[in-house]
């Protein structure tokens, strides 16, 4: 029995979040991230 598939997996959302973060850093909206 096939399970309903999510159109966008959690895996893909994690990639999207990381890419958005990278974009924000690139355009200067996030300048420094302390550690």
């Amino acid at each position: 029995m096939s399970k309903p598939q999510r159109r966008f997996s959690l895996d893909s959302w994690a990639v999207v979040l990381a890419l958005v973060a990278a974009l924000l850093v690139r355009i200067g909206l996030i300048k420094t991230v302390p550690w």
Partner: protein
Amino acid sequence: MASSVALPQARATSFPNRFFGLVPGILLLLAVGYAGKFIEQSIAHYGKAHHLVLPNIEYVLWAILLGLVISNTVGIPQVFRAGVATYEFWLKAGIVLLGARFLLGDVLRLGGLSLLLVFIELALALTFMTYLGRAFKLSPKLTSLLAVGSSICGVSAIIATQGAIDADDEDTSYAIAAILALGAVSLFIFPLVGHALHLSDHAYGLWAGLAVDNTAEATAAGALYSDAAGKVAVLAKTCRNALIGFIVLGYAIYWAQKGQAAEVTNKAAFLWRKFPKFVLGFLFISLLATLSVFTKPQLSALGNLSRWAFLLTFAGVGLRTNLRELGKQGARPFIVGAVGEVAVALITLGLVFGADKWFHL
């Protein structure tokens, strides 16, 4: 990398409700992870102020220990559970961002070597685990699940395989419990063995990435050794993860031929569905870093964002490990898993020593 435990299934609740339902658990991850960082820094400051040489215990270990104490004493109240389960999400986002700390050339060199070792490890581990499962008279499908879990990618590989070979839920939970318990043990044993053998950061990272099952535990085991070892461990583990689709497809075809699982009609679509997409994100960010799309301070910011994402992950590793639940699963799958893990650890250690000798890691 257990994708299944990441978020609760969609219910009749609205998106805002589900979103805000995650907030308490994510804050708990942050609090536990930050407490780990605070303890590490406090010990370092105390040692410096009093001119004492204290062991540098990384925040990774403190975060995991704090999480373990909370989950095995007071437990995780329901309100936090959905948010705590997002730790896998942060792990994947952290791996993608970690790509900024690798030049593509390094990825190809170390990744190519890792892939070569992964192929050897997979062949030996799958064969050995299958033999071991038969020797201990485990059900054939449980044996398949344990073999996949210990050789390739831990919990997510088991879950991907369960769907593909129509394995019982009970077998699946046995295999997951064994792999999780052994992953927790590896966290403490691997750094000790690495230090005892004076492994270099690269050699140790490669070993942890090849031998520790779950991506979260492999990342933590690497980071416990050193920052550089953590990077290499993630890269090696990512190479293993990239092969998950092929292994699951192999098992799906095997069980379908025996008439005990559904036929795989479209193999390319099957492989794409099982392929961990964060591997592509990692390579993409690494490509951007190689093309100098980011300045040095921007690379540093991305590296730190990745560290914050891993901090949430390490807290989650401790918080989701319930030792009592793991103990309830029975001894036999655990013994098979443990013997298999020790074998995989020894095989991969031998491979890493060989690679170190030939390729000077």
